[in-house]
């Protein structure tokens, strides 16, 4: 894997050449973490109420008064641009009798916040404005009944919130992300598509289906599942780099059957697999590789279509599935052709289902203003990703990725074996999340 990146026609950016794996243990992870309502309740109290999580993109809030409601389990937060330079967050709850102030999740706009029950209102910075029947509330003061603030910081064009009143700064939590993404600025991208789907499994089982490429052979019937590098950069950040457009038949030596192995794929056959990206070449010229040709075609085609200069982008950045994970539930892809952001979270308070947000983040020309983000496409658990046309070639892949989840959630409940078993290398990122979660659940974080 590392050899591929080091010998590409256009060598990978320095963060992609780093390797950072360590053995983190091989004990089983209890199945009850995925199935127990008691554990899920504890997660709301000890994890979701205390960790950083992105709520929206800055482009959702271009003007003062723009707001975004973000729901996580039993909690709801209002994120608002209170003036041109300030984005703040508040608990979405009236300080009178607790009523939720703004309705469903997503974008909104208002010049002030008003509770729909008795009409108490607050300015965009949370200060108490109007209190109808003021004479009856001599015990209420502006300070005691302002909107309840929530920690709010920005990185990479994302707005993060943390419900913990004593939250440590976001910067301490991002580990290597700022240094690595200096090479791949996500703030210089716009939301091309947003798809949100209900998945029929616990949020951890759902996200773990996206944390390894080990499943590629069986789930996707694809040749390059073992062709990935796994890195752990600290308690909160991990990564895989899954190279696209090449593979090693040797890595499949103990896989069942001869498919993909004997005979090995030729460079032309590899290019055929890459043609889903839309390439100009149909054949690989003598002395070239499918990977180099595909990257070259895509630099030209995508750069032209977006008005962005991709001439310096490495082969790896152009093609590979490069996936950074930020604890507990966020994924950022710096890639150009594989440019996603994922977020997994509980679906309300249901332990058996989750919400999966996919954003496609497209590079923006230098100096261009972010256009208005598209409304999310909502899919139920029963719907196919192919109903979201914006996902194009990715849709059937997501159907395959999520097609095992109902089976896994059901199987976790009927298993007599008390825990799931993880591979030491290919599934190390999953273990890292559980280790950090242990600290949150013990109250050490």
């Amino acid at each position, binding site marked *: 894997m590392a050899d591929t990146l080091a010998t590409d026609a256009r060598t990978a950016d320095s963060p992609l050449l780093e390797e950072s794996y360590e053995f983190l243990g091989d004990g089983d992870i209890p199945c009850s973490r995925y199935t127990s309502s008691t554990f899920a309740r504890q997660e709301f109290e000890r994890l979701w109420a205390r960790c950083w999580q992105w709520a929206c993109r800055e482009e959702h809030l271009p*003007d003062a*008064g*723009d*707001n975004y409601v973000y729901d996580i389990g039993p909690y709801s937060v209002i994120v608002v641009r209170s003036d041109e330079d300030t984005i703040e967050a508040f608990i979405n709850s009236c300080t009178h009798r607790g009523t939720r102030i*703004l*309705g*469903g999740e997503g*974008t*909104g*706009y*208002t*010049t*002030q*916040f*008003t509770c*729909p029950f008795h009409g108490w209102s607050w300015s965009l910075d949370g200060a108490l404005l109007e209190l109808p029947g003021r004479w009856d509330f001599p015990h209420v003061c502006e300070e005691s009944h302002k909107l309840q603030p929530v920690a709010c910081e920005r990185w990479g064009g994302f707005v993060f919130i943390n419900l913990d009143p004593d939250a440590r700064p976001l910067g301490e939590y991002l580990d290597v992300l700022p240094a690595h993404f200096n090479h791949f600025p996500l703030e210089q991208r716009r939301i091309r598509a947003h798809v949100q789907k209900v998945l029929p499994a616990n949020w951890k089982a759902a996200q773990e289906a996206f944390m390894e490429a080990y499943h590629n052979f069986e789930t996707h019937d694809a040749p390059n599942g073992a062709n990935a590098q796994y890195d752990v950069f600290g308690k909160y950040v991990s990564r895989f780099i899954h190279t696209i457009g090449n593979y090693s038949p040797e890595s499949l030596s103990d896989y069942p059957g001869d498919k993909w192995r004997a005979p090995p794929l030729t460079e032309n056959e590899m290019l055929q697999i890459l043609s889903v990206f839309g390439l100009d070449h149909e054949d690989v010229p003598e002395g070239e590789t499918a990977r180099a040709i595909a990257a070259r075609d895509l630099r030209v085609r995508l750069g032209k279509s977006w008005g962005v200069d991709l001439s310096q982008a490495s082969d790896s950045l152009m093609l590979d599935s490069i996936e950074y994970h930020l604890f507990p539930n966020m994924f950022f892809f710096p890639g150009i052709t594989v440019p996603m952001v994922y977020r997994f979270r509980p679906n309300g308070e249901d332990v058996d289902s989750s919400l999966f947000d996919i954003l496609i983040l497209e590079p923006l020309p230098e100096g261009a203003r972010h256009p*208005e983000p*598209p*409304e999310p496409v909502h899919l139920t658990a029963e719907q196919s990703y192919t109903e979201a046309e914006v996902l194009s070639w990715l849709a059937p892949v997501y159907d395959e990725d999520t097609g095992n989840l109902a089976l896994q959630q059901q199987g976790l409940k009927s298993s007599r074996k008390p825990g799931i078993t993880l591979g030491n290398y290919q599934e190390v990122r999953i273990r890292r999340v559980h280790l950090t979660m242990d600290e949150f659940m013990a109250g050490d974080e």
Partner: protein
Amino acid sequence: MSDSTSVRVASLRQLTPGKTLCVDVDDREVLLCHTPEGIFAIDNLCTHSAARLCEGKLKGVRVFCPLHGAAFDVRDGAALTRPAVRPLASHRVTVDGDDISVTLTPQVVAGG
């Protein structure tokens, strides 16, 4: 029978995509909304406390009241979030070249 008559109210050039424009039709304030799905017309006054929606904001196919943040679907006037619960009247729009015309929906008598 002015209620069923199509009236030219604005030119397409006046209505930027993603923006709204308030026009008077037969002494009634009507909000034109230029959305990604086309141009729609609804009453301009919020059904909750009569704030002028032209001072709010259009996002996609929803318009937000500036006063309390209530959302309406501009395609049919449906009230989407509290504190608004009653829908806005929605009016038929036709675009002919550069001309935007509106056919008013008859006004509902309060309490009727």
